[in-house]
């Protein structure tokens, strides 16, 4: 196919960008990558269009070239295109370099075996270091921009393949001292240094002269992949320079640096920091993060090197710089920030979190930083938001919420206020009128007032409930806050019952400290209403959530009054949902009457049916079972439809469920128990099991039918007596017993489970034999033998044996009955006594066996 026209490409790009996956699934998807590469060399397409094609390849290389070979081929083609460009200025060189880099790095094709990598890396390093690549490569005017681009490409490759430029550290250092752009070089050096330190620390090696290797180290010869190969194995989450991270995660403490290496390292870091003012603020911040990462935990590298930079940075409004300072603070703590420095940093952060010249997102982020401030000596538990110790209420004054704030700012500041209230509570006996707590109460009242506004936006209501939730969460232990909060919320409900869904949601999420009193207050609030308001729908929804066994009569009389006004299906269902909640809560007497009334009174047949069903359930099921039957469905917890959920809930509760067995059975040691052989079963349970019935079955007519075993209750971890299963063998043969269990769970469900089969050994079918006195076994056996003979019969038989021989056969099946080991004499205590073998030739393949039976 010839090259596509400009229009066609513009249209294709548009369609692709609208939905890349849809495009790739379409008929044109397959060819896109190939067409793009070939049309880059077409003379018909304009440069801007080619730039657009390259821009696409920068964003979607995975779609265009989905595997490593394709990415490798694409990178090769892009490099060919680059080399073939005529030596006049062109807008394509930069994007071609970027595209080749992206294709290799994103496509996973960056490795020593890749030809394209072997071409791209020296090209980039040559461009970056300003080496002469020959006039033909690019005109002089493009050299500077290409140089900067080459540095960026190298940095990206180093990011994706740590250690790739480990061999160039010496060269990079040497270049930093010369003229040329400082920023890309500084950033690359810092990154490569950090990666080299991490890789070498893992390998337990030093820097091995990497920093001092001269410029010649990378010239000529193939690319040095050694460090990158090490790094590849360990490409893993970078150790964040944050105290919450594991101390040894970055593992730099293992790095052994010689004094000379340590000096070189220090000199390099100092060189980087000294030139850092030449970098843009965002790049300065990156440099600080990288160097902080590099030096954290490294022995013999005091962080004082950073100190000269800090005062300059502390004064700026730049988000990235202050953030990088906090990272250094977290990484080095007291080694870099004295207590006074810490206080100053905290003050600057507090100031920045409220400075009117900064935008809201910045304020909010600084507030987050305040509550996660890396203190030198943190008190509370790590990982929890808390106000730093040095942040007193005086400092916080400007950070407290007011109704005028945006919702997010209000919530963030409210959180801080709550933390202050916690502290305030700890400092007892202040008795101030204007305590943070009073302010909190006023603020919450203001929020409720706004939420109560009829027709107001839902966001206002949501904000009010979020604030209430936050307060209940932070100040759960302070009744002095929760009591007015509960009252206020009850008032809010009175003013605007339409907020019922918010109340239900709040009740679902808060802890019992607020949940319990609020539930009571809301129930009273609803029950005190006449049941015929416009808001009946909301009252019923509310009541379904808060109704329980308490104050039954008020609730029932409200429902009775409401029933007359429940004229449509929706209201009737809402009413029945309340009844259902009461059923679950175990409300009895009055409810039965109400349900009967409803079954007669409701107009809608569906409502009548439900009322009747509930009545029947109430009359026939015991409390716990009823609770489960009406509780949230176990069978379909994710299904939102209440109708389906209800049906499945019943089905689940009232039918026997197939379940994986929480029971383990095993055969225990034998012991004489009465006149028949008895299996002693050991039973273990993983969860409590009630009314357990174990049923056993054996194939064929080997034994008489086996009875079931019943156990009232079994609990995990509690010792249990063995269960006894008497066997009546009809034919003495080993067998597998199929076992089924029927039991109830603590939640009231009845379950049925198949257990793994039990193996009944041959030996299990005989009564255990009392041990004869020590030393007298042989005589004992002979007497026994002889005592059988007068009445019984003696026989002798020869039988073929498998390769195991008689010894193994006896020890496998008859071991418990062996009276004398040599010569082997065994006694079977069965209904018909049986003894033998008496004698046999040990080496004979067909031993003779004497048997005597009575």
């Amino acid at each position: 196919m010839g090259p596509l026209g400009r229009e066609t490409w513009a249209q294709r790009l548009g369609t692709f960008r609208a939905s890349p996956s849809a495009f790739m699934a379409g008929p044109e998807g397959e060819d896109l990558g190939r067409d793009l590469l070939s049309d880059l060399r077409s003379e018909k397409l304009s440069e801007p269009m080619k730039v657009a094609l390259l821009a696409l390849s920068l964003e979607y290389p995975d779609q265009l070239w989905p595997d490593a070979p394709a990415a490798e081929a694409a990178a090769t083609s892009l490099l060919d295109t680059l080399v073939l460009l005529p030596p006049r200025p062109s807008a394509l060189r930069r994007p071609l370099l970027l595209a080749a880099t992206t294709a290799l790095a994103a496509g996973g094709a960056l490795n020593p075996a890749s030809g394209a990598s072997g071409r791209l890396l020296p090209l980039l390093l040559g461009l970056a270091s300003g080496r002469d690549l020959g006039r033909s490569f690019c005109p002089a005017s493009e050299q500077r921009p290409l140089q900067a681009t080459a540095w960026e490409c190298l940095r990206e490759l180093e990011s994706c393949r740590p250690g790739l430029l480990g061999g160039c550290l010496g060269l990079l250092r040497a270049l930093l001292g010369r003229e040329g752009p400082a920023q890309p070089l500084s950033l690359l050096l810092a990154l490569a240094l950090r990666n080299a330190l991490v890789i070498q620390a893992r390998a337990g090696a030093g820097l091995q002269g990497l920093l001092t290797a001269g410029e010649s180290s990378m010239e000529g010869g193939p690319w040095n992949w050694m460090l990158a190969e090490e790094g590849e194995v360990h490409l893993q989450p970078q150790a964040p320079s944050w105290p919450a991270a594991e101390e040894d995660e970055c593992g730099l403490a293992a790095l052994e640096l010689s004094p000379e290496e340590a000096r070189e390292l220090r000199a390099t870091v100092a060189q980087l920091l000294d030139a850092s003012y030449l970098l843009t603020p965002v790049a300065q911040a990156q440099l600080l993060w990288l160097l902080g990462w590099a030096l954290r935990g490294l022995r013999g590298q005091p962080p004082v090197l950073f100190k000269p930079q800090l005062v300059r940075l502390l004064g700026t409004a730049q988000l990235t710089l202050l953030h990088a300072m906090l990272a250094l603070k977290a990484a080095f703590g007291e080694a870099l920030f004295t207590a006074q420095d810490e206080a100053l940093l905290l003050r600057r952060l507090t100031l920045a979190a409220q400075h009117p010249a900064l935008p809201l997102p910045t304020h909010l982020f600084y507030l987050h930083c305040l509550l996660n401030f890396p203190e030198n000596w943190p008190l509370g538990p790590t990982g929890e938001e808390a106000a730093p110790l040095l942040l007193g209420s005086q400092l916080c004054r400007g950070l407290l919420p007011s109704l005028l704030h945006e919702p997010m700012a209000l919530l963030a500041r409210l959180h801080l206020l709550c933390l202050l209230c916690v502290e305030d509570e700890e400092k007892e006996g202040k008795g101030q009128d204007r305590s943070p707590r009073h302010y909190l109460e006023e603020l919450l009242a203001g929020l409720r007032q706004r939420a109560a506004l009829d027709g107001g936006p839902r966001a206002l209501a949501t904000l009010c409930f979020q604030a209430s939730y936050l307060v209940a969460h932070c100040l759960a232990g302070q009744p002095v806050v929760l009591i007015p909060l509960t009252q206020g919320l009850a008032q809010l409900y009175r003013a605007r019952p339409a907020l019922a869904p918010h109340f239900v949601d709040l009740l679902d999420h808060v802890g019992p400290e607020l949940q319990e009193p609020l539930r009571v207050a809301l129930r009273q609030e609803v029950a005190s209403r006449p049941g015929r308001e416009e808001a009946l729908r909301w009252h019923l929804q509310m009541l379904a959530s808060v109704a329980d066994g308490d104050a039954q009569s008020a609730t029932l009389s409200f429902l009775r009054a409401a029933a007359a006004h429940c004229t449509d299906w929706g209201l009737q269902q809402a009413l029945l949902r309340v009844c259902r909640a009461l059923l679950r809560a175990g409300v009895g007497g009055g409810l039965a009457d109400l349900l009967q009334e409803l079954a007669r009174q409701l107009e809608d047949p569906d409502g009548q049916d439900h009322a009747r069903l509930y009545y029947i359930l109430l009359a026939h099921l015991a409390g716990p079972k009823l609770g489960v039957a009406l509780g949230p469905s176990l069978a379909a917890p994710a299904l939102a439809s209440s109708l389906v959920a209800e049906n499945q809930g019943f089905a689940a509760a009232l039918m026997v469920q197939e379940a994986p067995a929480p029971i383990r059975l095993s055969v225990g040691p034998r012991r004489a128990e009465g006149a028949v052989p008895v299996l002693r079963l050991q039973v273990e349970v993983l969860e409590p099991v009630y009314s357990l019935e174990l049923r056993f079955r054996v194939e064929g007519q080997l034994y008489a039918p086996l009875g079931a075993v019943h156990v009232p209750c079994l609990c995990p971890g509690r010792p249990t007596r063995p269960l006894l299963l008497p066997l009546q063998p009809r034919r003495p043969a080993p067998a597998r017993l199929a076992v089924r269990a029927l039991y109830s769970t603590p939640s009231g469900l009845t379950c049925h489970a198949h257990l793994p089969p039990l193996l009944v050994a041959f030996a299990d079918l005989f009564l255990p034999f009392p041990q004869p006195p020590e030393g007298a076994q042989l005589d004992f056996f002979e007497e026994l033998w002889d005592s059988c003979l007068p009445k019984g019969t003696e026989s002798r038989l020869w039988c073929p044996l498998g390769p195991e021989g008689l010894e193994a056969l006896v020890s496998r099946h008859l071991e418990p009955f062996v009276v004398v080991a040599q010569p082997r004499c065994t006694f079977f205590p069965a209904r018909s006594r049986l003894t033998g073998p008496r004698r046999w030739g040990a080496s004979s393949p067909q031993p003779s066996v004497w048997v005597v039976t009575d």
Partner: protein
Amino acid sequence: MAQRAVWLISHESGTPLGGIVKFSRRYPTVEKRAKVFNGASYVPVPEDGPFLKALLFELRLLDDEKDFLESRDSCSHINKTSIYGVPVGGEELWPVVAFLKNGMIYACVPLVEQTLSPRPPLISISGISQGFELLFGVQDFLSSGQKTDSELNTKLSQLSDLLLQTCPFGTLLDANLQNSLDSINSASVTHLQKQPAWKTGTYKGKPQVSISITEKVNSMQYDKQEIADTWQVVGVVTCKCDLEGSMPNVTISLSLPTNGSPLQDILVHPCVTSLDSAILTSSSIDAMDDSAFSGPYKFPLTPPLESFNLCYYTSQVPVPPILGFYQVKEEEVQLKITVNLKLHESVKNSFEFCEAHIPFYNRGPITHVEYKASFGQLEVFREKSLLVWIIGQKFPKSMEISLSGTITFGAKNHEKQPFDQICIGGTAYLKLHFRILDYTLTGCYVDQHSVQVFASGKPKISTYRKLISSDYYIWNSKAPAPVTYGSLLLLDLSFLQSPLPQLKKKQLHFKGIPIPEA
């Protein structure tokens, strides 16, 4: 510290999707790292369509607010920063940095170089601040000078090229996009030794330095016993240094007159090379005393080429420039209002403009107004339920003006009349808008002779000053009004130490009690 993707979305409420993706850029090499670093908790960056929908929902920008939706309205779904978890395809993409500014949503997804479960604290993710800076940079670029839609579209079309310069692989190199645009346009600039990355070229021409100080004053006035009025000045000093040489050194000093109000909370531009510790520590957080540092505030710096904000500051002046008093009385269908305004004698009585906007929220349209103004004219915007009292360029000699009137409203129509969540019941405010040129409330100025420039040639130095009102509210003293913690606390202190005699004076004044001359 890299970004996985960036989006610009115009928020268009009322359209089926609620918005349009105006620009998006993905960084596949960063995405590849995300896959490794995040491990099992990795969630891929979605396509534009699903992302748009999910983000608008998360930001509550879809119009559908009628019903309670747990995933949006649940009380436990609390966001305290502009960083969101956006549900996409059953998983949650986190962290998404996003904010809405002037109808445009700016969003990006920073790379987190560790596992996401449990979520690491935001403070430990370097990409968060980098992401913010990128978005702020884009926002500055789009909003600078842009007025019309076509200008905006031009800028949006330049964005792809600009990000190729400043953020080629997702790691931001310079948040100042305009800089990069200039450097594209002047590609032949030769980089000298030690050329800073934030300065894309050198200036050739007549040396000149221009410095302008803009102060904004905000205020909350209540005229109540139990609540103290508050006001604050926020200043910004903007500079443009056209100087030859690659790194000229300049020192700019801000000075105060003897009775000037000390500058506090000073934040400086990163080009400032060193800072006096007195500047660093002077802050509004501390209780004020006479020993507060009052300048001169010296800023040694190496200026960038473009215009930049040298520093921001705040200041607590002793009195608000205009004292106000506003009373609203509801009488059946009518409202009776009384407004008194008094310009403080120390303030320059020469305005570029001065207006008082008196809105009436949560009511119907204005049907009838009867009023008496001692000065200026009143404009009535009936449909908007708004009165604008145009005071003009000067207060009269007495420095005091008043307005009283009776306003009648028609039936409330939710669609047309403005809703306000604050002005419920009797709560109401008037807002002052004014501007005074060549004046600062703190007295802060730049002495031309104090500007030191270490560069070839003697530059022309020009300085400008102006005062603008911003959020200058006077609340109805007959009804509750929203307060800040500060205004409660301030009053507590005032009982103890009486540091604000002006406050009491004002209260006496408006209650018609003659103020004894000091």
